[in-house]
């Protein structure tokens, strides 16, 4: 150490029995390949990784098998070569014992590396300093490096400090938890990697200095680091700082306070103080990634506890089952079996042993009952305040306990429960043996859940209100339309009345304006239908063309509007027709034939003939299409069917007209037929639409083709059914007509 660092201290803290010697007797080993590697997709804080492989794929060691999904996320790499046997939910190492998606790899034993090289070699530069920090950060991200200390925060995210000017890089080698020696062994045996990682990190964040904080109970590690500093000639930027042993000095906030005397603001990050804090393990992983191109596929894990015959530190592949490791260390199951992942203060007890080691698993502790007796029965809190004396966050644990227990969460928040780092110091000193941390975890979880529920309720309220507003708006619009129509109808009625009064002498004059209006309406309807077809075509085109997707909603809206208009017009026509029908039928009875009357036999005949001619043209076209093998065949067939229908319709209308006025009963059935016909038209429309979609899907090779084909078939069936019904309805009509004649 060349610079003098003035040490500070943090409030509280405890001195539990260290129990570190057991696992440092044996040198760092390497765990043999297990039969199976289980890699949870969510080993870090943030979004779970997105799998890039499928079951059955062969992967090479170091190959990326799942990519980061979002900014705060980290990719996952194959720890060895082998076959992906499954991507499924498996129990993951989490206090809940729940299952999460995992990639399962069966090693092939060859341990074959994907070709890889250091970033400098990749980019063809000689020196680290020639590489842009951004590139380095991206590389670190691609190598799947997350915080190795405990929480597993993606390192690249932590290094993306943005606008913040970073002054100090802190490497956390305090390792204050009892039993754990993974960082200790790393610093002893791979001090060079740690210091090299510190160099890289210094370059990335642009910090002036780096402090490596190590507790004074690790003299070998401190010596090794100092030697590495000399070897790499880095004594001037990087200092190994020996700090007093006190739990939890390895907490990020506590370490920052010890080394700089500053406090990370509540809810803030160290970067706001110009500090970036990384674990020594993370630094070593960064070194492996940048200098050698190796992604994070293994870590050092401490196997310790009196239930193990050979406590030791092993370099293990991520995904190695816990049971495999315990067996290696000579595990003797106890009466009350208990294995803790992490340390005795902050680790969690595993619900079972078929769980994988993940990127944050620094220790597997298998204690005997004598060694760590399971929690005693909690007694009542006597408010002695020893917890407050021990709390490194300067909270009032005892008050938090009362509030959590009585679920007075607002008060718990007022007492800064979210500043609790769950270090367990309060529980450790509590004379009443109250599981305080569990109460805080409960309160925090419940508060978070409540907040989420509140946010959801708020969203639901807004959505509900907006829906109500929309419905009201629609209602108002409908009402306005109805009113307008009613007014128009009344006006028409009045006019009619006036006309009727005026033309009382010439009763025949009443009908021509009616039929004219009808024709006008018909024209309007035709125009609307043409517009609709055009819009539909445009819509189809827009849907097909990716660049036009943003127009789709507008087109859809337009389509809906047009359809509404058509419907309105159709209704009006129907109304007009009905009105018109009353008069002409009387006229027809009087034997007067009017040229303007659409129901006159001549007109009907003309209509029939036109329809027939159209049918013939369509048939001809169909023939040609069939000959050409064009795919419009179905559409044409459809058209023909429609045309045929029109011909039949026209013909029956003509017949009816020729045969004089239909009896009252037939008028009713004619209306029914009209309804049926309308239905058929609508159905035809649907068939056409379905067909269009089908064609489009086929043209684009979408995988919905089959489903759509089925849909087309279904709709066509329905159409046929309707047509049959219509035919059935028409026949009796024809019969009655014949009989009448």
């Amino acid at each position, binding site marked *: 150490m060349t610079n003098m660092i003035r040490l500070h201290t*943090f409030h509280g803290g*405890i001195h*539990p*029995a260290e129990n570190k010697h057991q696992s440092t007797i044996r040198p760092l080993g390497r765990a043999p390949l297990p039969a199976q590697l289980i890699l949870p997709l969510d080993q870090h804080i943030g979004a779970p990784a997105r799998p890039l492989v499928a079951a059955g794929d062969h992967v090479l060691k170091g190959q990326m098998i799942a990519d980061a999904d979002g900014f705060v996320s980290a990719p996952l790499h194959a720890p060895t070569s082998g076959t992906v046997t499954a991507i499924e939910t498996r129990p993951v190492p989490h*206090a809940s*014992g729940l299952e999460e998606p995992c990639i399962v790899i069966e090693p092939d034993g060859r341990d074959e590396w994907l070709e890889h090289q250091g970033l400098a070699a990749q980019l063809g530069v000689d020196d680290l300093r020639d590489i842009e920090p951004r590139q380095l950060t991206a590389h670190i991200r691609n190598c799947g490096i997350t915080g190795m200390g405990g929480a597993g925060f993606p390192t690249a995210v932590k290094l993306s400090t943005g606008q913040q000017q970073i002054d100090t890089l802190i490497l956390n080698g305090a390792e204050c938890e009892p039993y754990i020696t993974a960082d200790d062994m790393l610093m002893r045996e791979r001090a060079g990697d740690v210091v090299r990682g510190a160099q890289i990190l210094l370059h990335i964040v642009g910090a002036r200095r780096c402090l490596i904080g190590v507790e004074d109970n690790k003299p070998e590690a401190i010596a090794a680091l100092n030697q590495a500093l000399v070897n790499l000639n880095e004594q001037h930027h990087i200092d190994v700082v020996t700090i007093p042993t006190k739990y939890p000095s390895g907490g990020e*906030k506590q370490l920052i*306070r010890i080394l700089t005397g500053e406090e*990370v*603001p*509540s*809810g*803030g990050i160290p970067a706001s103080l110009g500090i970036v804090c990384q674990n020594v393990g993370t630094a070593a992983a960064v070194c492996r990634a940048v200098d050698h191109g190796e992604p994070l596929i293994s870590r050092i894990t401490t196997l310790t506890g009196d239930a193990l015959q050979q406590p030791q530190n092993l370099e293990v592949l991520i995904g190695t089952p816990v049971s495999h490791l315990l067996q290696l260390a000579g595990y003797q199951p106890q009466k009350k*079996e*208990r294995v*803790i992942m*992490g340390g*005795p*203060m*902050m680790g*969690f*007890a*595993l619900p*079972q*042993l078929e769980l994988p080691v993940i990127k944050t698993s620094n220790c597997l*502790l298998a*204690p005997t009952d004598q060694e*760590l007796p*399971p929690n*005693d029965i909690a*007694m*009542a809190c*006597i*408010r*002695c*305040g*020893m917890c*407050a*004396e021990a709390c490194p966050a*300067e*909270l*009032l644990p005892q*008050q938090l306990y009362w509030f959590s227990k009585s679920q007075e969460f607002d*008060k718990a*928040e*007022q*007492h*800064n429960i979210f*500043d609790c780092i769950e270090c*367990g110091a309060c*529980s*450790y000193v*509590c*004379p*009443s*043996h109250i*599981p305080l*941390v*569990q109460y805080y*975890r409960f309160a925090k979880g419940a508060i978070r859940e409540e907040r989420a529920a509140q946010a959801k309720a708020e969203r639901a309220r807004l959505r509900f209100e907006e829906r109500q507003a929309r419905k009201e708006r629609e209602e108002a619009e409908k009402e306005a339309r109805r009113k307008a129509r009613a007014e128009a109808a009344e006006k028409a009625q009045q006019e009619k009345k006036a006309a009727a009064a005026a033309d009382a002498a010439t009763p025949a004059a009443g009908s021509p304006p009616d039929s004219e209006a009808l024709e006008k309406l018909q024209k309007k309807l035709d125009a609307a239908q043409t517009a609709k077809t055009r819009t539909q075509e445009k819509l189809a085109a827009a849907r097909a063309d990716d660049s036009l997707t943003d127009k789709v909603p507008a087109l859809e809206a337009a389509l809906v509007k047009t359809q509404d208009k058509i419907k309105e017009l159709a209704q009006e026509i129907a109304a007009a027709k009905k009105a018109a029908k009353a008069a002409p039928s009387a006229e027809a009875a009087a034997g007067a034939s009017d040229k303007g009357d659409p129901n006159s036999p001549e007109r009907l005949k003309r209509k029939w003939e036109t329809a027939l001619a159209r049918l013939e043209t369509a048939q001809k076209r169909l023939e040609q299409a069939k000959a050409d093998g064009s795919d419009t065949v179905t559409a044409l067939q459809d058209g023909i069917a429609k045309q045929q229908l029109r011909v039949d319709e026209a013909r029956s209308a003509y017949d009816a007209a020729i045969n004089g006025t239909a009896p009252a009963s037939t008028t009713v059935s004619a209306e029914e037929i009209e309804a049926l016909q309308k239905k058929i038209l609508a159905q035809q429309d649907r068939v056409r639409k379905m067909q269009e979609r089908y064609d489009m899907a086929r043209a684009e090779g979408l995988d919905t083709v089959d489903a759509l084909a089925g849909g087309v078939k279904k709709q066509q069936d329905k159409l046929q059914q309707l047509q049959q019904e219509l035919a059935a309805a028409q026949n009796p009509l024809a019969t009655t007509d014949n009989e009448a004649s």
Partner: protein
Amino acid sequence: MGLLTLSSPHTHGPNSTSKVMANVVLATLPGLAVMTWFFGWGSLINVLFASLVALASEAAVLLIRKRPVSFFLKDNSALVTGVLLGLALPPFAPFWVTLVATAFAVVFSKQMYGGIGNNPFNPAMVGYALVLVSFPVQMTTAWALSTQMSGSSILGFGDTLQVIFAGHSTLADAYSGATPLDAYKHLIGKNTADTVLAEATFNGWLNGGWEWVNMAFLAGGLYLLARRIITWQIPLAMLLSLSLCSLIFGWDEDMYTPLSLHLLSGATMLGAFFIATDPVSASTTPTGKLIYGAGTGILLYVIRTWGSYPDAVAFSVLLMNFAAPFIDAYTQPRSYGHQKARRGLPEKN
């Protein structure tokens, strides 16, 4: 279901409630020894009898409440209540005074609130206050004169038993009298300090053995401090505020009780280190403890000087018990990472 899963931490320090309570009892022993030395067997008999009553009443209530008896008796909290009451009551107090005080303390002031940890008031002081207002004669005259003052040796063990349990109070007449605090307060004003000290009660000694008793309790208190069972704030604040009041108002020995008598007589040290520091009913925040201690000291002086009771540890502690939750709410410490403390009650929306 295989493995044992519990929330972290999985390890625990050596501390336990019963050890804490046992340490408190241990720390009272020097004081008890000195009291026995100067005032005879009365205190010792009281302590033993009160402890017995405390344990018995606790066990009885636990049985009625259908709670595990041995589990709770082992926490030693009833023992502490009994010992403190035994020390606080006059050595020649009749057994039924001790009985009523202790039983009331344990049953009404502790168990009726839900047992250990749930009592808002110091149980021992509730019991003491009850008998003080109910039996003022016994409570003021059953004090023993110290061997230095009575000029003779202490009353024998058997005689003391007779005084306490059989009501032969006349046996103790020669050995009993008011405490120096009481006597000084009643005599001063009419007399000068010199003439008061010449009275028989004092016989030239200002404190008559009480200074040693208080020194012994101070030693016990320092032991508790060293063991980190109590914190320094409450005793220090209480003694300082008491001294300050005495210096400001009672500088004239001919008018008011002098500082030395305040500090080293009566239950001052017992109160400062053993009674006011009862964690359950006292303030818990560091600043809160200072305020709580200071408040206790001021009330102690006020009641001793202008009240009608000779000693006032019980009343001042009980009055401050009322204020403790309020004090705590407004004295939350600043937490790590915060510019300033968040105090008071949570804001509604």
